[in-house]
C-alpha cells in the first residue's frame, strides 16, 4: 500500500441533519484514473469537496501519503496545492489573463520564480492547446477553452492528484470533446485523477477504476470491465440501465 496517495477513512458528512456521505472508505493509488458515477444528489461532489478540504468533514479522516490532513497538523493550503481541482463552473479568476491565471498560484503558493512560473504556465497551456490565448481574459473565451485553462491552472501547480467535478457538464456538446481529449491525454501520461462524470464512455475507456455511489455510500467499485459491464449490485445495474437508456 506504499503507492497509495490518498486514503479516505470512514468519511461522513452531514449538512444539518442531512447525511450526505455515510462512512465512505476509499483509496487512491498513484496512476489511478478513477471515475465516480452515480445519480444526482448521491454525494459525488461533496466527496470531492471533502477531499480538497473545501468542506469540513463531520467525521472520519483523509490521509495523504499516510499522513492525516484533517488532524490540523498539516498545512491545509500546502496540501491543497498538491491536490488540484477542476470545477464544473471553471472558477477562473476574471481579473487575470489566461497566463496569469496559471501563474498566480505558482508564485503565491509554491513561491516559484517569475520566469520559471511563466514558462511552466506556458508549457501546460500549450498542452491543453490554449497557448495562443495567453493574453485573453476568461470573459473572452468559450466554455471549453475556459475549462482547458482551468485544467492548465491546476496542472501548473504540478499536483500529485487531480480532482475533476463534472468538468464537461456545463459545456455545449461540441466542446465536450476538446476537454475530454485533454483528460485522456493526462490519463495516458499516468496522471492520478479522480473524476466525477456522467460521460460513460470516459468511465469505460479511460478510467482504471469505477466507483458507483448512491445515497452517500459507495455501492460498488472495481475496474470498468466489471462495474460497468457486469455489476454485482442491483442498484448499479438499475442505474446503468436507466443511464444508458436500455
Amino acid at each position: 500500500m506504499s503507492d497509495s496517495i490518498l486514503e479516505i477513512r470512514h468519511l461522513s458528512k452531514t449538512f444539518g441533519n442531512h447525511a450526505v456521505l455515510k462512512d465512505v472508505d476509499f483509496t487512491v493509488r498513484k496512476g489511478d484514473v478513477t471515475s465516480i458515477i452515480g445519480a444526482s444528489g448521491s454525494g459525488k461532489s461533496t466527496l470531492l469537496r471533502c477531499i480538497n478540504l473545501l468542506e469540513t468533514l463531520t467525521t472520519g479522516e483523509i490521509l495523504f501519503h499516510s499522513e492525516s490532513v484533517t488532524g490540523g497538523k498539516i498545512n491545509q493550503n500546502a496540501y491543497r496545492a498538491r491536490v488540484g481541482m477542476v470545477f464544473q463552473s471553471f472558477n477562473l479568476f476574471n481579473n487575470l489573463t489566461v497566463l496569469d491565471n496559471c501563474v498566480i498560484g505558482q508564485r503565491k503558493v509554491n513561491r516559484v520564480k517569475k520566469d520559471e512560473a511563466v514558462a511552466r504556465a506556458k508549457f501546460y497551456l500549450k498542452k491543453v492547446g490554449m497557448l495562443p490565448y495567453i493574453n485573453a481574459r476568461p470573459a473572452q473565451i468559450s466554455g471549453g477553452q475556459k475549462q482547458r485553462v482551468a485544467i492548465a491552472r491546476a496542472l501548473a501547480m504540478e499536483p500529485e492528484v487531480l480532482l475533476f467535478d463534472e468538468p464537461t457538464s456545463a459545456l455545449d456538446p461540441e466542446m465536450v470533446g476538446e476537454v475530454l481529449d485533454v483528460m485522456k491525454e493526462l490519463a495516458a501520461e499516468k496522471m492520478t485523477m479522480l473524476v466525477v462524470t456522467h460521460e460513460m464512455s470516459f468511465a469505460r475507456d479511460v478510467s482504471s477504476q469505477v466507483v458507483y455511489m448512491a445515497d452517500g455510500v459507495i455501492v460498488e467499485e472495481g475496474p470498468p470491465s466489471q462495474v460497468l459491464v457486469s455489476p454485482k449490485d442491483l442498484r448499479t445495474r438499475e442505474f446503468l440501465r436507466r443511464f444508458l437508456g436500455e
Partner: protein
Amino acid sequence: MLEQLFSDIGIIWAKYGTVYLTGIWNTLVLATVSTLIGCVIGFVCGILQTIPCAKGDNLAKRFFLKLLRIVIRIYVEVFRGTPMILQAVFIYYGMPYFFGMAFRDIWTVSILVVSINTGAYMAESVRGGIMSIDAGQFEGAKAIGMNHFQTMLSVILPQTLRNILPQIGNNYIINVKDTSVMFIIGFQDFFAVHKMVSGAVFKYFPSAFLEMGGYLFLTLLASFLLRALEKRLQGKGNYELVSEDQLVMTAGTYQFSGAAPYEEKSRDYQGEKP
C-alpha cells in the same frame, strides 16, 4: 443686474483671488487625501471582516475574529450614524480632553476626521463589493492553496475595486462638498473663504456665486477623471492571439525535473510542512 454681479465678482476677485484659490486648493487636497485614506481603511476592513471562520478552528481564533467583526461594526455604525461636523468637534476637542495632547496641525486633524468618516462608508461598500464576487473564484483560489489574504489581494479586491469605483466616486464628490463643515475647527477650505470674504466686504451673493462655480468645477472635474479611470480599469476589450511559433522559444525553455512530469517530483511534499 448681471453687469453689477460681474463687476462685484471682479472686485472681490481682484482683492481676494489668491485667497479663493488657496481655499479651493485646500478643499481639493483634503478631499482627495482623505478619500484615498478612507478607501484604504475600507479595503482593510473588508479583508478583515471576510476572514473565513470555520467550525473546526480553535477557540482563540474564533473569538478574535468575532471581536474583530464587532469592532468594525461599531466603527461603521458610529461614524456613519453621526454628522461629520460633530465628529470633527468631538475629535478636535476630545483628544486634549482625554490624552492631554492638542492637535498642533489643523491639517492632521481634518484629514483624520474626513478619512475615518469616509472609511466607515467605504467599509460597507467594500463588503458589498466582495459579496458580489461569485463564490467560485474564492473556491478556485482555495483549491490551488491560496490563503485568504493572497486571494483577496490578487483576485477579489481588484475586481471589487472596479465594481465599487462609482461608489468611491460618489464618496469623493461628497467629500469635496462636505469638507466645508471642517470650518468648525478652523480649517481654511473653500467655503471658509466665502465666510471670511463676504463678512469683510458684505458682498454675499457675488461670493456665493463664485463658490457655486468653484465647487461645480471641482466636482465635474472629479466626475470626468473617475469616468476615465473606470474605463482604464475596465481593461482592453480585445486581446491579441499569439501565434505558436512566437511562443515555442519561451515555452521550450521549461524543463521537467524528472522523466515523466507527474511521477518524478522535483519538490518533495515532505519539505512543505510548516
